[in-house]
Structure formats: C-alpha cells, structure tokens
C-alpha cells in the first residue's frame, strides 16, 4: 500500500477487528468504532489505532471518530441497515472520499449498489466461490 490512510472502521466484530488489525499493521492510522466496549477485546495487542465506543448511527459518534478526516470508512456491523445508513451518512455529512459497507442481503445490496453505495456482499462472494468449486467438480466429473 503506497501511502498512509486515515481509516475509520465501524463495527469491531470478527470482520471489523480483523481489518483493524491488518490495516494498523500495514501502517495506516485506524479508528475502530463499536457500541460495545468488549468488542475491542478482539483487537490485537499490536493494534496501534484508536478506539471509540458509541453507536455509529449517531452523528456525534462519527464526529468523535473524526470521520470528517477519514480517507476511507469501512462499515462492517452485523446489521445491514446500520451499515447502509452509516455509509450514506459518511458520504453525505462528512464527504469521505471512499466508503464501503458490508451488506449480507443480496436483494438490498443490489438496490443500494444502484444508488451508488459501494458494497461488499459476503453472501454473493461466498456464493461465487462455492459455485466455482462446484463447477470445477463438475468438469472433473465430466473428464473422468
């Protein structure tokens, strides 16, 4: 990664904490946000970023996390609606240059992709991987 980014990660669960650890180790300045303080326990001891405890659907919490200075905001809570809302707020209220939200529901993901929200859909990604495997298995079957 070429330059240091200031990254805000909303949701410090399995995905969020993993990203926070990796991105911090890569030299970026990271702020992890979660409404539950115990979630920060998943952060590695080497994590060199900040922690903000609060509900990211509150504007004040995003302000506290300095979202207005962020180069990138990653929204990865367990709740699709929270992720979609925070992603839009980050763009509309804080003009963050790049925002990406995890959205589990493929139907919702499709609508919001058209609305211009950058999303990652684990369901779709996993489906692709599994389908690839099935397709490989099918072609092996055919050639045996």
């Amino acid at each position: 990664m070429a330059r240091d980014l200031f990254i805000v990660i909303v949701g410090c669960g399995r995905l969020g904490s993993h990203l926070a650890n990796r991105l911090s180790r890569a030299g970026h300045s990271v702020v992890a946000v979660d409404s539950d303080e115990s979630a920060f326990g998943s952060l590695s001891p080497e994590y060199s970023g900040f922690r903000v405890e609060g509900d990211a659907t509150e504007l004040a919490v995003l302000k506290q996390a300095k979202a207005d200075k962020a180069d990138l905001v990653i929204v990865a809570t367990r709740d699709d609606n929270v992720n979609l809302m925070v992603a839009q707020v980050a763009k509309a209220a804080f003009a963050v240059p790049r925002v990406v939200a995890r959205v589990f529901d493929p139907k919702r993901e499709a609508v919001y992709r058209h609305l211009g929200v950058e999303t990652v859909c684990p369901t779709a990604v996993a489906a692709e991987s599994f389908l690839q495997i099935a397709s490989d298995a099918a072609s092996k079957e055919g050639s045996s």
Partner: protein
Amino acid sequence: MKVLIVGGGKAVYFLCRTFLAKGHEVTVINRSRDECVEMSRRLKVTVIHGDGSDPSILEEAGARGADVALALTPKDQDNLVVCQLAAREYGVPQTVALVSDPDNEDIFRKLGVGTFSTTRTLASLIEQRTALDEITNLIPAAEGRVNLTEMALRPNWPVVGKALRDLALPADSLIAVVLRGDQVLVPRGDTTLQAHDRIVLVTLPENHGPVLRFITGETT
C-alpha cells in the same frame, strides 16, 4: 390512498384507525407475530409479519402500489432503509421516516427521505418553562423547519408599548399577526404592541428559546 406502515405499538394502531376512518387502505408490516395477529383481529388492515426493510417483504406487502410509506420503527437506520427501498425500488411517491436522533433529520432529507421528529418539538416545548402558560399553540410548520406560536402579551413584558420598528427582534423571527380583542392586525412598523395582545410569532427551532426570552424579558 394506499398507505403502507412499517412499525408497531399504540401509535401505529391509532394511526391505522385514523387512516381507515378517512377511507384509506392500510397495510402494516410488523416484526412481532403477536402484534400482527392482534392488529389483524382489531382493524380492517392487511397485516404482513416480517422485516419491512427486506425487499421481499415490501414486495409481499404491495409496496409497488402504495401511495405513501411510513417507517415508524424505533430505529432510524431501519426507517431510512424502508423509505429508500420503497421510493427507489417500488416507486412509492411519498415516504416519511420517523427520526429519533435530531442530527439525522437533515441528512435524511439530504438523502431524499421525508422525516418526522418528535424530539425537536418536545425539546423546545420544555425550554419555554415559565412561558408555557402564555403559549397556547406550538405548531411546527414546513416539516419542522419553522415554529408558529400564539401567545398573549403580559403587561410587564419588555415588548409591550413598543412599536414593531423599534423592537429589534432577534434575527430570523417575525411577529406575523397581532390579535387585539376581535381585531386582526397584520402589523407594520408603526404598530405598537399593547398588553393582552395575542401575537402569532414565527421562529426557527434554533432561536425559539432566545426569541421567547426576548419577548417575555426572562433572563434565564
């Protein structure tokens, strides 16, 4: 009109009753099976059990044919998604989201979603404390962006005996109407305020408190 409501509780129940009385068709989406059963027993509404922010549920509830979608759940994020899906995916012409966090009101509007918030209205009501007995109405107009207040001027208030042009009301406020006895005056610069006049005051939510204090002479 075909009204689609996402949410539950007493407020939604009475809202449904009100819409039905006006002759509208109502569909309710609710996450609690018990509430759904209860509502379907007591009211002539279509009830769908499920998550209103799930496109397939909205589809099932006939969002495509709805004229209005009201998202009244306790969570701002759910209400936002319901309204955005209803508008973008199902072409519902009018959507309103209940907003609990006043900070979110402006953003939701920026994102094209109409909002309704009780927080701001209640907060400014409480701020007025002593002035409460003089205030007979507090109507937020223009989607909560403007307040209209009717109040009777007490004899000892600093604005009594002054002409409007000499008043120096705080910025962004206006005395729109003066009711004197059974006279209705649309005031001009030389209109002098008298004790017991009832004025209709226009303010913004942000300056409502200070303007009231200016008029009543409260220095709190």
